[in-house]
């Protein structure tokens, strides 16, 4: 062991900043490949979509507050619930989790960027362009209106002749590219870019959850891509995949869609669980109890999630034997979820809980997830499911799991990790207020929906008659949704106020254990001056001071220390035990990802307006971008 550097630290850090900083202004904006900048952009953009979707939800509630209301017409109502669901799934939940993953993964692994930084930039640009693509539908007055899962034959060209559904179908294919590319990046980064000593059994649980999410994406997203592509082929080119009259099958669409659709629920849920699994131990002041059980459960959920899709189709008239299998598999998924639950309870039980805002959100998540999980077990039982299919009970159930069990951890994560990203703490007072408003509002809004569903209120119907006994509860639901919306706005206020008035965060404001808290807040552009050497599952608790790696002479250790950071390099390590293996050059800023994403956007626009010239132009731009990219690749420098 030796003292790390002869030169003063400030001088080195200044030099590093100059090497790693993006070009100022617009060139830097479009050309950056910095995972932190991209990650934060993901989060900001996704939250814009979150509030758009929230506004749509409030319009839906305004329409349903009283019987026979006339706030929006039936057509607008269809567009509202379609775009609300589509936005929340495709444009908020998935990308916001990718945003946290992008920002945090390289930091938690102790490296200087993602494995493919340019692909990372590309996946962001595709996401934002796909979001704009879908929302252009509002500008031309033709938003999708076939429900967020676009079942046939409602959505074929005969029954939906407008351009509305093409925005949806093409947009889903487009945004899927972003998700897939991001998942490839997460997997390779996790396996190849870890700090020396961070063997696979020392990964933070959030990394485990992102890894499980990424593998689910790799195997599930192709199914929805195929479903949407065949739907669009039917609509645009007159093929017969789903046309029963010409031998196709509308049921096939449902299978393809839900083969992705159910894993997608866990694609959203698993990273949220990973966040909670990071926050609860920190605020219980102890290591997570049952680390191996928690990691194993995340992986188990990822596997089982592929065997349950038919439970979305119990009312479609499938053979009883097939349905029994999927019903059983859906019940089985309660086991790993239950294990996770006991891991969190044991951690809190054996620790000393600090009731900070992130902890409140995690704790609220436990209650909501429990309720959502229990109704999940109920609807996986066939006879019960037949009773509540397409009723408000289902709406209640999936909001408990998707809004409650995913959005609450995300809000907790904002209070937990934004200080690392911006260097400023968020107000605890506003945070508590926001949590209680959201928690109470959430339960007031969504719990009565169970009852309404059992009373027979259907989903997706724009109004209802008087005297069905639904009046009081619908008023309660709307009041709750307003309170919930107010709570989310309070967090935005806390977020904005922290930029000017927040207390400085310091490196490790929560006394947390993972590596992202070893660097300054906001994170310097180069992440780590020298790569940390990990010898524990909780490096910041067990390794004080945290040792840094020295640069050696061979390929594997050359880039560990400051000279590597100064040369834009980061080490590559072996897959399981993270031994020093090679050195990777991190690409510089480039417009290529933006150009390629733009080419794709032009291509999809061409398909949308059925203009061959535009489509071909998009393909040409994208191909040039790809060839240029392949030409300049640094792969052979490795």
């Amino acid at each position: 062991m030796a003292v790390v550097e002869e030169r003063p630290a400030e001088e080195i850090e200044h030099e590093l900043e100059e090497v790693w900083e993006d070009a100022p202004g617009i060139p830097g904006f479009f050309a950056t490949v910095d995972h932190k900048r991209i990650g934060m952009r993901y989060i900001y953009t996704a939250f814009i979509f979150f509030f758009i979707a929230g506004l749509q939800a409030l319009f839906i509630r305004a329409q349903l507050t009283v019987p026979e209301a006339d706030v929006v017409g039936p057509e607008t109502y269809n567009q509202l619930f379609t775009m609300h669901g589509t936005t929340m799934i495709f444009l908020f939940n998935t990308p916001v989790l990718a945003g946290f993953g992008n920002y945090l993964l390289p930091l938690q692994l102790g490296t200087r960027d993602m494995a493919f930084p340019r692909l990372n930039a590309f996946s962001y640009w595709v996401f934002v362009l796909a979001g704009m693509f879908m929302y252009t539908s509002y500008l031309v007055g033709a938003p999708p209106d076939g429900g967020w899962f676009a079942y046939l034959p409602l959505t074929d060209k005969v029954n939906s002749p407008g351009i509305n559904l093409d925005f949806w179908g093409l947009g889903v294919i487009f945004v899927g590219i972003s998700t897939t590319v991001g998942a490839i990046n997460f997997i390779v980064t996790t396996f190849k870019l870890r700090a020396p000593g961070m063997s696979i059994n020392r990964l933070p649980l959030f990394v485990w959850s992102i890894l499980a999410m990424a593998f689910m994406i790799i195997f599930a997203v192709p199914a929805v891509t195929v479903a949407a592509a065949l739907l669009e082929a039917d609509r645009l080119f007159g093929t017969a995949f789903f046309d029963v009259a010409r031998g196709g099958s509308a049921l096939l669409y449902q299978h393809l869609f839900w083969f992705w659709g159910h894993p997608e629920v866990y694609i959203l849920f698993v990273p949220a669980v990973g966040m909670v699994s990071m926050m609860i131990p920190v605020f219980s002041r102890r290591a997570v109890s049952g680390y191996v059980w928690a990691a194993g459960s995340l992986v188990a959920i990822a596997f089982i999630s592929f065997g349950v899709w038919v439970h979305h189709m119990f009312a479609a008239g499938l053979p009883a034997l097939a349905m029994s299998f999927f019903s059983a598999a859906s019940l089985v998924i309660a086991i790993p979820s239950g294990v996770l639950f006991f891991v969190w309870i044991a951690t809190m039980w054996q620790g000393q809980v600090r009731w900070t805002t992130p902890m409140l959100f995690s704790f609220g998540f436990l209650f909501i997830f429990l309720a959502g999980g229990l109704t999940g077990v109920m609807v996986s039982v066939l006879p019960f499911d037949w009773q509540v299919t397409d009723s408000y009970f289902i709406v209640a159930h999936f909001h408990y799991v998707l809004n409650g069990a995913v959005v609450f951890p995300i809000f907790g994560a904002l209070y937990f990790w934004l200080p690392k990203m911006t260097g400023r703490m968020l107000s605890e007072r506003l945070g508590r207020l926001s949590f209680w408003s959201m928690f109470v509002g959430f339960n007031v809004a969504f719990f009565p929906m169970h009852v309404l569903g059992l009373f027979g209120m259907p989903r997706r119907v724009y109004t209802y008659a008087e005297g069905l006994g639904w009046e009081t509860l619908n008023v309660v639901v709307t009041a709750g949704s307003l309170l919930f919306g107010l709570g989310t706005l309070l967090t935005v206020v806390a977020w904005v106020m922290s930029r000017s008035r927040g207390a400085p965060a310091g490196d490790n404001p929560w006394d947390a254990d993972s590596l992202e808290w070893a660097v300054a807040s906001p994170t310097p552009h180069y992440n780590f001056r020298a790569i940390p050497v990990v010898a524990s599952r909780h490096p910041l608790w067990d390794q004080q001071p945290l040792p840094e790696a020295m640069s050696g002479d061979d390929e594997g250790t050359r880039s560990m220390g400051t000279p590597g950071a100064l040369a834009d390099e980061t080490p590559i390590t072996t897959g399981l035990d993270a031994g020093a293996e090679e050195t990777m050059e991190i690409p510089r800023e480039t417009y290529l990802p933006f150009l390629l994403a733009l080419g794709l956007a032009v291509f999809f626009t061409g398909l949308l307006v059925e203009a061959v010239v535009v489509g071909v132009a998009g393909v040409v731009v994208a191909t040039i971008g790809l060839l240029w990219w392949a030409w300049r690749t640094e792969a052979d420098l490795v």
Partner: protein
Amino acid sequence: MTTAVAVPPASPRRRTYPTGWWGMVVLIMTEAMIFAGLLSSYFFVRAISPEWPLGHIEPPELRRISLFTVVLLGSSVPIFWAEAAIRKGNQRGLRLGLLLSFLLGAIFMANLFIEYEELHFGVRDNAYASLYYAITGLHGLHVFVGLLMNLVVQIKAWQGKFTASRHLTVEIFGLYWHFVDVVWIFVFSSLYVSVGHW
């Protein structure tokens, strides 16, 4: 106060491929799922159909495509030669292997277009026809992208950019090309052999 430690390099036995290689492997996994989805759709529709091919249309001839299947699968062999050559630093072997593979792939591609011309059914006729064109078309697109990649690698090879120790691009391209060939075995078995029209 931070302390600096020397990290020992990993033992050669533990070493695996670098990031680019793994990236291609994961991309292939997700691409394979797209084909799996389409082929599952094919068998799903086939299982619920009264006859196959639907509407008694005449499926493409098995004899000719068998010949071109040998051509396509054969195009993987020169890639193995090319890789073996560059591992020993043999530039000529690398270039010839890539070129031969390109030609075989291009011949297969040309046959696809000729076959499309000669078929007695169009993509809109019924679900069988749509599935047939979608699956072979998507595979053809993959062959086309593979040929483009081959071009890039080949130009680099003719410029002499690869050496015995640095030729990852060749291996990554090789992975993709083998994938395109292996997928064809599944497409060929499902769309031609199982329909069996000599």
